[in-house]
């Protein structure tokens, strides 16, 4: 996908407001429409007809015209173009209606309930193919239905699609990759290696623990529990909604939630709106000076001017660690007066740290190196990704273990392995649609943080940033 987000211009930050500027009929905008047109040109079918049908089909879905009107309008043209048209005209309406109940034809799908769009969007993910390929395969018909835009509004809800039954947690994403994590708390032993890994990677200032591990006790268990807490990179991120300057935004390419260090005004509204407390403001001078950050010699404005390829090549050569693929300064620790938080390591994802680091994060690497492998980072929408594969594997394991115990439960339609997994999301009912899925115990209302087996002091980090910051307060401390 090449729709790059420039975060502040009229790009596509997912604000849902961009299309007001262009003339396109399609909810995804002019650019997408052009892409569709191009695809139709590639097929043997009539481009203009396809585009017209696409436009009207959107009107149909929005209820501006009736399906009978739609088919009346295109019946002839379709017969001519495709030789056949098994779509109903007004006369055939009653007849089709009767048939529909039996086999649910295209007509039923067009009426919207069990949307064909939904089906097709599943095809898309299942086959893991780009939209372009799918559309070509479907030919003019698919394009005519304007599926791309509609599909993005639907979630894949069919429980039997992936052969593993319903997913343990709702699919929160729109189309395209959505980076996230599966964190297996049962594997975590509180070693804080991920915390160290993140601090080293990002050179965050004292107490700004972007990755934070809470050790807690719950009322009815003596046992130590852990909660590994990076940013949840929410799909419906409140931090992003409230930002007055769009510095906090979701990157289009992979759904990562980032802060544009060049435009953030430091109002800290994102921090109060985030329910998870994952934001760390740069209150004073950062511990590590700007000059020491790899990539600090690259100028943000210049980078923005470069074509994508050239920019990425340049950033890779430089081993640039602070700019992401769009040339935006949003990686590593923020400058004074600007908000920071876990970034999902975008310069790794964009290949600037070398190919081998794409798809990894520093915390996951550290956790793996410690032999724990509790953190699994990857595209939550890709069944082949590490987190999805891990979920599947854990589901199978748990299923196998359980069938041994339960004797005779059968794998199949009703018994799905997901049912055996205790997977959950943090504060799910706040509607933030977090992209971190946890396995293991969920903290209850009486959960109380206690000192962990390894303390923050032991790893050279600071658990209480307030105390640390107090020494800079003018007038009260020993200033």
């Amino acid at each position, binding site marked *: 996908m090449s729709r790059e987000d420039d975060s502040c211009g009229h790009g596509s930050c997912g*604000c849902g*407001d961009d299309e007001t500027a262009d003339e396109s009929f399609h909810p995804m905008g002019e650019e997408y429409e052009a892409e569709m047109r191009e695809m139709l040109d590639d097929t043997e079918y009539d481009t203009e007809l396809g585009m017209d049908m696409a436009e009207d089909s959107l009107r149909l879905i929005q209820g501006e015209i009736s399906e009978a009107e739609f088919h009346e309008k295109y019946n002839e043209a379709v017969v001519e173009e495709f030789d056949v048209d098994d779509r109903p005209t007004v006369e055939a309406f009653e007849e089709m209606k009767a048939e529909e109940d039996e086999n649910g034809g295209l007509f039923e799908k067009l009426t919207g309930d069990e949307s064909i769009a939904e089906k097709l969007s599943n095809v898309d993910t299942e086959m893991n193919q780009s939209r372009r390929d799918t559309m070509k395969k479907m030919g003019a018909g698919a394009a005519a239905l304007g599926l791309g835009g509609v599909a993005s509004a639907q979630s894949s809800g069919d429980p039997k699609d992936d052969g593993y039954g319903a997913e343990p947690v709702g699919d929160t994403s729109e189309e395209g990759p959505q980076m996230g994590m599966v964190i297996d708390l049962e594997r975590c032993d509180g070693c804080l290696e991920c915390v160290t890994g993140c601090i080293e990677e990002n050179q965050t200032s004292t107490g*700004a*623990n972007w990755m*934070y591990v*809470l050790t*807690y006790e719950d009322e009815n268990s003596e046992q130590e529990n852990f*909660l590994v*807490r990076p940013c949840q990179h929410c799909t419906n991120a*409140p931090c992003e*909604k*409230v*930002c*007055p*300057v*769009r*510095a906090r935004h979701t990157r289009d390419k992979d759904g990562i939630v980032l802060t544009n260090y060049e*435009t*953030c*005004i*430091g*109002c*800290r*509204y994102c*921090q*109060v*709106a985030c*329910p*998870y*407390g994952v*934001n*760390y*403001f*740069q*209150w*004073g001078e950062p511990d590590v000076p700007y000059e020491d950050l790899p990539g600090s010699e690259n100028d943000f404005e210049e980078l923005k001017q470069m074509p994508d390829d050239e920019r990425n090549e340049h950033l890779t050569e430089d081993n640039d660690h602070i700019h992401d693929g769009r040339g935006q300064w949003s990686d590593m620790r923020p400058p004074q*007066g*600007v*908000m920071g938080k876990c970034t999902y390591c975008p310069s790794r994802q964009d290949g600037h740290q070398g190919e081998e680091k794409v798809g990894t994060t520093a915390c996951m690497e550290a956790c793996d190196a410690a032999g724990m492998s509790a953190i699994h980072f990857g595209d939550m929408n890709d069944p082949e990704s590490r987190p999805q594969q891990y979920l599947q594997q854990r589901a199978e394991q748990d299923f196998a273990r359980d069938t041994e115990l339960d004797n005779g439960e059968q794998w199949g339609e009703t018994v799905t392995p997901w049912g055996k997994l205790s997977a959950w999301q*943090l*504060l799910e009912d*706040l509607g933030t649609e977090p992209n971190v899925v946890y396995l293991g115990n969920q*903290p209850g*209302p009486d*959960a*109380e*943080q*206690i000192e962990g087996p390894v303390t923050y002091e032991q790893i050279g980090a600071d*658990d*209480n*940033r*307030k*105390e640390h*910051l*107090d020494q*800079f*307060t*003018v*007038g*009260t401390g020993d200033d």
Partner: protein
Amino acid sequence: MSSRTPNSDDIVRPMQRTQKWYYVVFGLASLLALVWFGLWSIQLSRGLAVTNLADWGSAGGVTWGLYIGAFIWWVGIAHGGIILSAAVRLFGMKRYLPVARLAELLTIGALSMAGFYIMIHLGRPDRMAWSVIQSYPVTVHQSPLVWDVTVITMYMVMTLTYLGLTVRYDINRLRDDLPGYLEPVYKLATLGYSEREDEVIERIVWWLALGVIVMAPLLLHGGVIPWLFALLPSMPGWQGAIQGPQFLTIALTSAIAGVIILALVLRRAYDWYHILTDDIIRGLTLWLGLFGLLFIWLQLQQVITGVYAAPLDERAIAHAKISAPPYQFAIGVVILAMAYIFAQAVKPSVFSVRRSLAASVLMLAGTLTEKVLFVFEGLEYPTFDMYYNTPGHYFPSPIEIGSLVGTLALCTLFFLVILKVIPVIELHAIEELRGEGHAPAEGDD
């Protein structure tokens, strides 16, 4: 005293005479303002680390504190002020005409301080204008902070228009008594003035007043300002529908208290006992009591629903709130002020302007404390309450407290300057008091 007949000489007196107290207050206010600018420059260079703010969550602090609390307080005074003045014009409460312009000026002064507080609060004030403007077309649809900025700007424009229009009448008639060196300013202000416009202007002002009154609860202090907090599900102390009415009553309480203080100070300074009469103060004191009562009422609602059978997170904040000494102080002083107001209503001999002054000061102290507490305590009790090991505590640092002194000094300076430029009491008010009024307002209250 009040048997003297007010005349236009009275209202131009501040511009003709400068007494000793003026120089003293001016000097003192400038000094305090300068000290504050010195402190602010330390904050600008070292960053907000010089405050007692910190990250909430694992860091155990609060990220919003006195700056935001004081911001709401100033905005409240400003919004209450313009509502007061609009009500006087809209409902023909001629009795209060002498304080209408004071309320408008208070709005302008307080609104400027609120705007200044936004700047003080930001980590990167240097980027403010550009970043906000650049993204405005999108953010105006989603960020309550942008709604705030929009509405504050809109009200600033409305109030200035209001004042600009009404002041033309006065300047034109009092021209000869006004200081000559400001002639260019007056020329500009009365550009194209003719007596025929008076009626039109009165009608425009009436419509503006209507706009202010209608939008006050919907958009203003009953709307976007509380929405900054009320819309966030993560902080149970903030979330909820009561914040709108709560904010509005606090705003009106603060504004009336502010106007009482202003009126009393000015009548002493310029011998305006016959213009800003005891009768006006008595009436304003009663209004103060009414809004104070609403304030207490809504607090009671929140506390009761919070402690009875609320969900755990709401319960935690409600308990924390009632056991917090600042909260007890805030409610305590408001109740004290209410006791006096009630007593003087029942028994008129209890009334004295000094007591009304004290009640107003107490009310303002109470609303300021409540607002600051509301902001930081909300952040100390989030829904996600697991960061137990790092319970920080917030108390405003000297620089933060300095900002209060600084903005109060700046607001005082604003009034000292404005006293020398335009009559702070309308000519209409004088005409009304002399029985020559021709204001369109029907009936007396």
